[in-house]
């Protein structure tokens, strides 16, 4: 587990872009993914973002971890929507009878007689790729941005300087606190705490108790941090100079304009023609 804030090593259009257009892109894509319910466009969008992640050098391992963690949840989505989402897809598709893909034999205990619908399946696919888009756009934007650019970009985007500072200082200090967690647990084991013999609930309670010395230790250190900040003339006043500049290039403006147009187009086409709606024009060939 890497404790450092990761950045991609490859140079790409994403690393050349300023933080502001990228954050804007992240917000627009998230909103659009929320509006759309068509499995076809969701799949296309998630696929595009995945390609962009590969292209910009986001580590495969990272993407794999996300997918591995999400898979059980995705299976649950697929199963529940396939079997149980009946009334919603009925109203969305306007069908009274759903297309049955397969049924579970009547004699099976508890779940016997359930049928898995094609429409429910596609709805599940929509939700899966919707989440995937929203999750993957984060590393695409964050990991391709230099930390300095994040902070300065935040300030330039009118995020109050204090917030930008807290963001940056938190990034500096959390790895220290994370290693404290290990130290505290080690200290407890050195006092006879037999983690090996514990069940999950007991272990959880050990971890919960770790938070107490962790927070108290951090609060004690914060007093020191406060003095350090003051001795460095920190006042939280945004009227200061900045070592790193953040000037929007033509490319940045182009991206901002592109995503504004994209957002409007996506919304209008969805509202007027049902583009991206479930079972709408984009899903025509599925049902």
């Amino acid at each position, binding site marked *: 587990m890497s404790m*450092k*804030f990761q950045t991609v090593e490859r140079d790409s259009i994403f690393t050349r872009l300023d933080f502001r257009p990228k954050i804007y892109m992240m917000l627009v894509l998230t909103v659009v993914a929320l509006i759309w319910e068509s499995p076809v466009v969701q799949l296309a969008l998630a696929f595009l973002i995945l390609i962009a992640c590969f292209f910009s050098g986001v580590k495969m391992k990272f993407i794999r971890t996300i997918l591995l963690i999400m898979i059980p949840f995705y299976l649950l989505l697929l199963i529940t929507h396939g079997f149980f989402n009946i009334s919603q897809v009925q109203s969305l598709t306007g069908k009274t009878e759903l297309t049955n893909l397969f049924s579970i034999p009547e004699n099976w205990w508890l779940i016997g007689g359930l049928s898995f619908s094609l429409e429910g399946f596609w709805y599940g696919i929509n939700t899966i790729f919707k989440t995937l888009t929203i999750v993957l756009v984060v590393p695409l934007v964050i990991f391709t941005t230099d*930390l*300095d650019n994040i902070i300065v970009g935040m300030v330039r985007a009118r995020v109050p300087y204090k917030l930008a500072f807290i963001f*940056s*200082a938190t*990034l*500096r200090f959390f*790895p*220290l606190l994370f290693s*404290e967690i290990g*130290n*505290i647990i*080690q*200290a*407890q*084991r*050195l*006092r*006879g*705490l*037999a*983690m*090996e*013999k514990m069940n999950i609930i007991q272990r959880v309670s050990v971890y919960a*108790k*770790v938070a*107490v*010395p962790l927070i*108290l*230790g951090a609060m*004690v*250190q914060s007093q*020191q*941090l*406060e*003095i*350090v*900040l*003051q*001795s*460095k*003339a*920190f*006042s939280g*006043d945004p*009227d*200061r*100079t*900045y*070592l790193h*500049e953040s000037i929007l290039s033509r490319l940045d403006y182009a991206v901002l304009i592109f995503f504004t147009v994209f957002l409007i187009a996506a919304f209008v086409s969805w509202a007027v023609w049902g583009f991206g709606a479930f079972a709408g024009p984009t899903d025509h060939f599925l049902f």
Partner: protein
Amino acid sequence: MSDIIACLENVSYQYPRSIEPVLSEINLSIQKGEFFGLIGPTGAGKTTFCCALNGIVPQFYGGRFFGKIEIAGLDTLEHPISVLAKHVGQVFEDPETQLIATSVENEIAFALENLKVPREEIIRRIPRVLEMVRLEGTEKKHPAELSGGQKQRLAIAAALAAQPDLLILDEPTSQLDPVGADEVFSTVSELNKELGMTILMCSHASEEMAEYATRIGLLSNGSLLSVGTPEEIYADIPLLINNNLRVPQVASTFYSIKQKNIPVSIPVRLEEGKKVLTELITKKTQLTTPDLKDELVHKEGQPLIQIKDLEHTYPDGTKALHGVSLDIHTGEYLLVIGQNGAGKSTLVKHFLNLLKPTSGTVVINGIDSKKLTVSALAANIGYIAQNPDNQIFNMTVWDEVSFALKNLKFSKQEIETRTEESLKSMGLYEYKDRHPLSLPKGDRARVVIAAILAMEPDTIIFDEPTTGQDFRGAHYILDISRKLHEMGKTVVVITHHLYLMPDYAERVIVMGKGTILLDAPIRQAYFDTEKLNSTYLTPPQAVLLSIKLSELTGEAYCLLTPAELASVFTTNGGAA
């Protein structure tokens, strides 16, 4: 007349909600170009003094303030901290909490940005200050990639970048290993000598302070007891001892010699000490053979801890131990030394299964450690880790000390008795209902020791027990270790403070780059300067003086302490 950078007139200060003043009646002027050393035991008010010079005291803390402080002509109560910060740069003890940015260049730029220094000027200053502290080319590094000494040097560079009139360093080396401490001291001294930077430094490191400072002030209970040259202060042994301050070994040695009516000056620096020693010998002062205690031999029967061909590689690929073999017998007092990263902690963590061997074996009491759990091992091998604060997790001192006993499922009666006993032996019984974190740092360290000793382990490991402790605190803990040793327990101490150990340790393991460089009795190990130097350790001054003495006389003197060294000189009957 030289310019005055800092001027304190009748300064007294009291924190809010406290009755006693923490600074009282301080009068002092610091001149441009001085290296002013401030010494005093823990709790004397050194940190408050430092914070008063840039206005944090009293502007941030509040409280009652009397008198006047002027920094570069600015009254510290009439100018905001951010204005004073332009004139006073400050470096603190903990390398971790004082670096707040995510890269070296941002760290240096941070104060400058706050001071509204134009960007072009910031860009100009960064390489300049990095060069001053010899950290060129590290601009883009993350602070986590730097060693302890480098971190402190970066903190110095960041303070220098604002081009202050005064640079304050509050215990900048106490968390560092000898290499790091040396880097910091030589950097600061260079800044002082070559660039004329005015320095105010607080430190427990007497030898270095005597070496580098131009003037020393002794702070005790908030009062400036004495101000003078290092020669005046450090040669006044009774003054230092009365204030629980460590005497540089050179001064201590010649003071003891002088006590024997041998006319001799008391030098405070090593080089002068060697000169005085040479004079003594050329004057044909009489010498006797020292009466040294016999070395104990423990190597009998089955070893308590048996390490064979131990290798350890961390998950990130760092190879920390390369084939280490070692036997530890019951009743030994073992000292493990070596630079940071030499593998000291990695080695002892294997005794407790906190780390598992990559290859090789660890056998504890005849049983392969792989078959034992950490908690089972911990009951027999008490491990007192470095920072007491992340070893405290209960709401009262009593619960803290009985925590292990409950885990080990002792009877209620047994828990009561053992907890009470352990608290009393550490002098903590009266605090049993207090929250551990409400106690001062030295006492918190003792709570942790009490909590480990309550398990009545046969072996006790102290990992850097004296880091961040003053002279008295360090000896309090080491005296405990000696008492345990006298009770027949096996004691292992890891430390950088070689000068503290001759009165305690018997056997020394010198580690370097993941191997054991030397395993020898302390008297032999401390004189193997070559091996010590190869892992960046320097023997205590008494040892260096003994080596000089051997050179001068052609006889081998293996003396470890100022007292032993002084004992060689016979009392002068009175005739000069």
